[in-house]
């Protein structure tokens, strides 16, 4: 058993489809020779990659924090929509250093951080910033996960069919990928929010907004996954085990979903991990522009746009939500990179 000679290099990515393609082949070769499956090898490599492990832990913590947002807010903060105007100096709208002696000249550029309010309070309303950021994680991750799932489902289905069937079906689907990539995504998202009325499919308010954003991302971003899946399927369908299944009289559906799809799980997981941060940024951008999540539901993008006019007097209000987005996206990116390197035989033992 040979150990990796160097830590996987985060950007040493080969042409994507190719890399994972070889990975699937390597699985069989290596699995036979030293009884380790590709997943075991990858896991061993991943464990040696400190950056990936740390970012993986951060990702898990973020997900836990999002799920446990109500608990965290209860223990360490205040409900995210509760006003604390006793901490706000009324004439400037900024948090005060010493709420007992209100004075317009005694405002705190760091938002009156205290044991009750770990990250201080929002200007004007005095809502607890910590719990708003934790609740913001909920929305952000929810939208990112749902939209990624939609991308993956659409992309996998269309990619696998295009790759397996070939011919005119492949041509049509591949052209469609080009078309979908040619749309100005953000403009469309903004437009849709303006066009779709309240109450469609029984959705209103933020349910509807989340629905629209998820639909837009899923509907226009599936080609990224589809391209990878198609490339993989193209080579998988020529392999012996597919031929064997076919000669045993297996149906197309069986071959696609029982024989080929299991071999695609790894690349799909790797690229979904890299799609999540993109989708987080997209939701944040829409909320920043005021067409994403509606207030008073906390969202990082909206917080940043609220902070824009105040950034000189309340820098913390820019920094905390900005950092929340940055850390989350960075963690997912680093973890995704690490995952890809771990599964990539070219960064090999």
């Amino acid at each position: 058993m040979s150990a990796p000679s160097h830590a996987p290099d985060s950007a040493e990515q080969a042409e994507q489809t190719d890399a994972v393609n070889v990975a699937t082949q390597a699985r069989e070769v290596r699995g036979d020779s030293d009884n380790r499956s590709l997943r075991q090898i990858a896991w061993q490599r991943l464990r040696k990659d400190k950056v990936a492990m740390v970012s993986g832990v951060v990702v898990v913590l973020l997900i836990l924090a999002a799920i446990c947002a109500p608990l965290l807010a209860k223990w360490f903060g205040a409900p995210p929509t509760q006003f604390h105007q006793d901490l706000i100096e009324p004439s400037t709208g900024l948090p005060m250093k010493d709420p007992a002696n209100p004075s317009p000249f005694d405002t705190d550029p760091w938002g009156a951080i205290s044991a009750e309010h770990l990250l201080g309070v929002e200007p004007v309303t005095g809502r607890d910033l910590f719990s708003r950021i934790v609740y913001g994680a909920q929305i952000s991750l929810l939208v990112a996960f749902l939209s990624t799932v939609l991308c993956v489902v659409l992309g996998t289905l269309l990619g696998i069919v295009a790759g397996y069937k070939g011919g005119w079906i492949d041509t049509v689907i591949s052209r469609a990928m080009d078309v979908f990539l040619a749309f100005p995504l953000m403009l469309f998202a903004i437009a849709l929010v303006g066009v779709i009325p309240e109450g469609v499919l029984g959705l209103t308010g933020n349910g509807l907004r989340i629905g629209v954003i998820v639909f837009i991302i899923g509907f226009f971003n599936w080609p990224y996954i589809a391209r990878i899946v198609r490339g993989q399927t193209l080579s998988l369908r020529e392999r012996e085990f597919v031929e064997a299944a076919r000669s045993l009289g297996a149906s197309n559906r069986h071959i696609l979903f029982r024989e080929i799809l299991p071999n695609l799980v790894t690349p799909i997981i790797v690229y979904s991990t890299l799609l999540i941060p993109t989708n987080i940024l997209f939701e944040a951008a829409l909320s920043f522009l005021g067409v994403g999540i509606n207030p008073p539901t906390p969202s990082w993008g909206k917080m940043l746009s609220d902070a824009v006019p105040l950034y000189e007097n309340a820098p913390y209000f820019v920094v905390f939500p900005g950092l929340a987005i940055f850390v989350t996206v960075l963690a997912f990116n680093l973890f995704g990179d690490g995952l890809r390197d771990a599964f990539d035989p070219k960064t090999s033992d």
Partner: protein
Amino acid sequence: MLNYILRRLGAGLLLLAVVTAVTFWIFYVLPRWAGVTPRGMAAMYVGKAPTPEALDATVERLGLDQPVAMQFLEFVRGLLLGQEFTFGRETVECAAPCLGYSFTTNSPVLPQLLDRLPVTASLAFGAAIIWIIGGVAVGVLSAVKKGSFFDRLAMGTALVGVSMPIYFTGLLALAFLVHKWELFPVSRYVPLSEDPVAWFQVMFLPWVTLAFLHAAQYARQTRAGMLEVLGEDYIRTARAKGLSERRVIFKHALRPTLTPIVTIFGLDVGLVLGGAILTETVFSLNGIGAYAIDAIVGKDLPVVLGVTLMGAVFIVVCNLVVDLLYPVLDPRVRIAG
């Protein structure tokens, strides 16, 4: 070669047609499916709070009660031949290509859009030049000096670059570089033709901010591509026959690496030309993206439709330009085409 050009042109036109159809579908058909009545649609198009009579007039004027196919024909006719709208006794013309007529400002959308195009174009081209040169240069250097301090620093920075929302970097830049340290002037957009120096000063920060995000992506991609190519046999051959390292890197390795980069470059420039919404918002630049956002806030739907369509046109056109550049970059295309 001519064959190739004609085929790309044809594909571009087809793409344009599909994009138009999808845009139409989103603005006219989807709301109907979602249960919006013709009057409701009219309300989205007139803006402000209209009277029932005004709504009926708009329904009539835009043909919103017509079957979808008729509306689509009318929409396409407007694009190709122009349209006329009657307001009581007055008739307004929306010359071809009529991207729509804003009932809020009482003017066709296209001229307003073109008014703002210089701002967005300045932003797009300036930033694009910085990010393609910067990104590729950093990527090549990183690949050549793989594992060095420079490589790690550059790739670390690039990862930060792709993970930062542009409105966050933009805000930080404004807060520190403009307001705190006063390195850049606080001022509005100045046209290039009026005062090139002021234009440059105003645009510099938006350029760098926008370019940083893209350059990061390009650097990562270039590095990955270069590393792959540098492992190829023909590179070893080139080195073995005694070519200088510079020649190997720039002539033999960089060229195949650039092909996919140029493809993305075309898409990105097209996308930014259609409105760099976030950058324009953060830096208060009055470009196409800001126009779209204002329109959404003011519920001026024809403008949103116009901007969307225009944005798609830019992407298609830029893609076409890249397609036509391909044979120059990649001789295989020349022979195959």
